């Protein structure tokens, strides 16, 4: 039996200092950003002043959550090669964002992806439906992040769970409320740089123990845990399960509202394109690092020790950082993990607030007739509402098994947001009724099927058998959403929508009239 000395779970001074330094710097940036955040375009889209490279880093910051850092490293440490399959799925969505979505989205939209869906359709019904898809995605993702934050901080710093949730909630509300998109973007950029450099340093320190030769690391892993760790194992028991999860991850990435929103912060389609290239590079690099971190933890910390802290292996990266870099380095990586959560929830909150204010209040309730000052005020109230809801949900779901919620968020994004977005860009005969029916079908099927699936029906509700056999519903809910969109649009054609497609094309392809 392996034993290891660890200070994990005790108050780590280095960690607290680094974390508060991060909060101080980012609140300083928020103060600076607040002066530049007066108009709606400034609040929602940083006045389109972010460069392609900066936005690429910020996209990476928005996407690399603590769950993927700690969770995937942990999965690799316990399951070996199988963990890599997960990270590949999370990455492969990005090229699709580039090929299908990024440029048309930038050219057609103003602040939210619903702008694009509603471009030539009837505003009211389409905005309401897309808001449902958006808010569901955001809320499920937020719950997973908040509960993860509370537990992580509880383990790392010894703060009570409730206090951790409230700190995270208040700081992220401050970013968004005062600094809008500009502050949120810089929080993402700083967090991305911290996370990437922290992970790089962790890999270098780990490889240093193996003569800087990754092959020696893998060799030690096979010696300690047999050859099986370098081959695919039990991850894919049912190929349909793997395909369904793959679809949710890939197409869901192209339907996450907080990711899509970032494309409105750059000046034009060319910068939008560049930002996806930069983001894909950094995210891919990060996932390769987590693979090495996982193997490092497997060999240097040991699987028994890792799973004794957390069955899912979530503490693997932290245990490894202490093992190769001592208490100070553990503190650094822990603070980075905390900062990571803070940045991701800030991005989600901003995106949820813009759905409430821009899509629902301005375009549905006020029918597009509000003044600048009024809309910014509403956006700020919406920020407080979403932030408050996030804190509340974090407290309500304490101790619950929320692991399935990220999968659910991706499934809804792939089944409700992605189909309507793609069809509105590429299909001339798409109609209002088709869009509404598609979004409702996609989101409700995704929720219904996941409740009946092994992830909730068995793991959460403790029934012995699942009613729906697959762990992720995307393989059913996504095609169903497309099919319903097609059938309903065919049965109820909409002349106005077809007529406006010419205008849309002019903007999609040439960027003429783009904001």
């Amino acid at each position, binding site marked *: 039996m392996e034993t290891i000395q660890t200070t994990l779970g005790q108050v780590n001074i280095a960690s607290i200092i680094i974390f508060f330094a991060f909060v101080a710097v980012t609140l300083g940036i928020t103060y600076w950003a607040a002066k530049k955040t007066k108009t709606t375009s400034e609040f929602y889209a940083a006045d389109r002043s972010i460069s392609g490279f900066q936005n690429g880093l910020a996209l990476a910051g928005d996407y690399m959550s603590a769950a993927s850092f700690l969770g995937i490293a942990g999965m690799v440490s316990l399951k070996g090669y199988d963990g*890599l399959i997960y990270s590949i799925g999370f990455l*492969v969505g990005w090229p699709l964002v580039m090929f299908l979505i990024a440029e048309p989205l930038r050219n057609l939209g103003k602040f939210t992806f619903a702008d694009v869906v509603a471009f030539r359709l009837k505003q009211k019904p389409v905005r309401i439906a897309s808001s449902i898809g958006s808010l569901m995605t955001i809320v499920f993702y937020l719950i997973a992040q908040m509960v993860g934050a509370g537990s992580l901080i509880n383990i790392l710093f010894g703060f009570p769970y409730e206090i951790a949730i409230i700190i995270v909630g208040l700081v992220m509300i401050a970013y968004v409320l005062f600094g809008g998109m500009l502050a949120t973007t810089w929080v993402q950029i700083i967090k991305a740089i911290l996370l990437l450099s922290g992970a790089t340093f962790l890999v270098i320190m780990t490889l240093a123990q193996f003569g800087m030769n990754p092959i020696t690391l893998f060799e030690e892993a096979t010696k300690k845990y047999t050859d099986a760790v*370098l081959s695919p194992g039990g991850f*894919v028991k049912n190929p349909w399960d793997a*395909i369904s999860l793959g679809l949710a991850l890939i197409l869901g990435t192209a339907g996450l509202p907080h990711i899509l929103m970032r494309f409105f912060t750059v000046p034009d389609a060319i910068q939008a*394109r560049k930002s996806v*290239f930069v983001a894909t590079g950094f995210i891919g690099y990060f996932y390769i690092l987590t693979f090495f971190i996982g193997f490092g933890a497997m060999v240097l910390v040991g699987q028994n020790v890792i799973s004794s802290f957390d069955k899912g292996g979530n503490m693997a990266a932290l245990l490894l950082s202490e093992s190769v870099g001592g208490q100070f380095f553990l503190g650094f990586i822990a603070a980075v993990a905390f900062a990571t959560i803070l940045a991701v929830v800030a991005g989600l909150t901003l995106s949820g607030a813009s759905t409430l204010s821009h899509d629902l209040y301005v375009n549905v309730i006020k029918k597009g007739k509000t003044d600048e000052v009024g809309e910014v005020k509403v956006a700020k109230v919406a920020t407080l509402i979403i932030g408050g809801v996030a804190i509340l949900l974090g407290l309500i779901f304490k101790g619950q098994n929320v692991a399935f919620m990220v999968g659910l968020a991706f499934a809804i994004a792939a089944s409700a947001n992605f189909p309507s977005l793609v069809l509105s860009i590429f299909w001339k005969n798409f109609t209002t009724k088709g869009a509404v029916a598609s979004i409702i079908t996609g989101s409700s099927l995704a929720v219904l099927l996941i409740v009946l699936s092994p992830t909730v029906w068995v793991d959460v509700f403790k029934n012995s058998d699942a009613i729906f056999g697959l762990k992720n519903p995307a393989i059913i809910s996504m095609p169903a959403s497309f099919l319903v969109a097609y059938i309903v649009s065919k049965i109820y054609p909409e002349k106005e929508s077809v007529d406006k497609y010419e205008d849309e094309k002019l903007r999609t392809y040439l960027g003429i009239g783009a904001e």
Partner: protein
Amino acid sequence: MSINSTRVHEILNSEKFKNLVKKRLTMSLLFTAIMLLVYFGFILSIAFYKEFLAIKIGEFITLGLPLGIGLIIFAWLLTGYYIRWANSKYDKAVRELRNEILKK
């Protein structure tokens, strides 16, 4: 914007614009198809040909290792290749058409 709508209509129906749209759609769909094929090919080989990925290509290293990491790098290079095409060929055609429309 003061764009003459009949002129816009003319341009939208011009061979040049139609070609641009067609090229762009072809590239988007082709690249999407390549990415999906490669990814699901990988997933299916994990499901049905585990032995293939477990083939040893060194004393310890399996074929699955460079293939998995290679897939991540491939995805990135594919976006890079797309950007190169878009920045050179596509943007040039877009600029020409934009100038035609906005000048009139």
